[in-house]
């Protein structure tokens, strides 16, 4: 009998301790969760589909340089598939290694990333440095053609709040009201693009 009471005792003891521990953990845990949730960012970077250009502004193999509202420089190149479909590749200037901005080096026909010496060919494929070791390429933005107009899905803000996105270099200049500003004409990408 005596044994029974002790074991009952210790069981009750255990249960009450467990209940206490659960209660405390739950109570403090709830406050911890609130703090954690408060700190964890809810919003992802905002993106939008933005109009870039009339597709006829570029002929096959030509490219233009577009500045997204967040300031990112995007190289847009036109090509036509064997099936005759017009396609656009919109290449980011953010290094896939650790996020620095790559720079086009016209004299070497390559993109160079100053952070850890990443090198990319004109197609955006890494050829040297850590991004090449990891077989990375410059990221591509989703592009879509609708009614002969080219749209890109880009981020609308970074640190500097959105301007509207503009073409900063293109092979031919649109003219007249309603056309994109066109700063300096460039040849096909990878050949004689100015710095």
């Amino acid at each position, binding site marked *: 009998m005596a044994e029974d009471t002790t074991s009952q005792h210790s069981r009750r003891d255990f249960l009450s301790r467990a209940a206490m521990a659960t209660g405390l953990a739950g109570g403090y845990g709830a406050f911890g969760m609130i703090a954690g949730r408060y700190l964890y960012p809810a*919003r992802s970077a905002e993106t939008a589909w933005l109009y870039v250009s009339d597709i006829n502004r570029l002929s096959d193999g030509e490219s233009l340089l577009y500045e997204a509202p967040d300031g990112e420089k995007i190289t847009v190149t036109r090509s036509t598939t064997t099936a005759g479909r017009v396609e656009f590749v919109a290449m980011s200037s953010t290094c896939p290694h650790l996020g620095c901005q790559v720079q086009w080096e016209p004299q070497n026909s390559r993109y160079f990333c100053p952070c850890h010496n990443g090198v990319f060919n004109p197609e955006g494929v890494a050829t040297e440095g850590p991004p090449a070791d*990891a077989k990375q390429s410059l990221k591509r933005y989703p592009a879509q053609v609708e009614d002969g107009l080219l749209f890109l899905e880009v981020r609308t*803000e970074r*640190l500097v709040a959105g301007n509207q996105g503009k073409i900063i270099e293109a092979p031919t200049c649109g003219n007249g009201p309603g056309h994109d500003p066109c700063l300096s004409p460039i040849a096909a990408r990878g050949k004689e693009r100015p710095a």
Partner: protein
Amino acid sequence: MTATRWFTDRLPISGDQLRELTNEPVPNHLKRWWFALGGTPAYLFVIQIFTGILLAFYYRASAVTAYDSVAFITNEAAFGWYIRSVHKWAATLMIAAVILHQMRVFFTGAYRKPREINWVVGMFILMCVLMLGFTGYALVFEQLSYWGATVGANIADQVPVIGGFIKRMMLGGDDYNSLTLPRFFVVHAAILPTTLVLLLVVHIAIIRMQGVTDFKFKDETEEKSGTFHFFPEHFYTELIIGLTLMLILSALATISPAALGNPANPLQTPEVIKPEWFFYVVFRWLKLFSVTVAVLSTGFIVFAMIAWPFIDEQIRKRTRFKDASVWIGIGAVIVIVAMTVWEAVVKH
């Protein structure tokens, strides 16, 4: 007399008790300068708290205002350049001193039983100090602050499983955004210093419990070894060291005051980009390997450093290389110094 009574009636502490509390016997070999390397970062940390609070009066933590507020401190606030330069130089010296202190502990084998736990605490102190350096540099919001933080967050992103979470937590979003800088400020000025204080309290409590490792040096005669008193002898020594440090810091601050580079520009990574000198090793490492290899190997090395007292114990127990740690230590120091120098002399 009555005033003393008034106090002792309310706070029952006697002078004797106070003396006992503060009067730790200190072994004589602490008179050798390299054993003071633990006290030096502690002193520098106090300077950091002091100058840091002063800087916080004028610093404004947001992407729009940060750079201008640092420029204000540097160029307009009376003695602002001095406060800022001392904060920067003390950080540099503190990191150097912590590293030297750790080397002293390593090469004298002072991490061995029973002091393994304090070595682990020390490693967390080291990481805390390095993170203070990293977050502090980000606050200036010049070009390197921005790109350093971006690269740092993307490194965190590569950590298996929890990387993405850490990166988002660090930046307050998917990329550097308007929520980022205030975070760095809170981490730098509140979270890390508090953590460091707690770690130091534990570190020093353990030292007091165990006593500093007792060494006998060949040139020590019997009566030269033994102990001397923390108060007043060691305390005076520390005061003198402290004043000397302040003079050195003031000289450094005057000769080479903290500069201000170009403001952060998210659209353009500078042609030549370097972190602070104490991250040169990691930076070189990142250039040598793909990011996955670099991150995993770094994680492995840090883990091995934390666990070193236990690894070392096994080596000594199971092999005949009793001094392996010394040779491994020398090798590691050579590699670290070589990589640091390499990074320092080349442009890319």
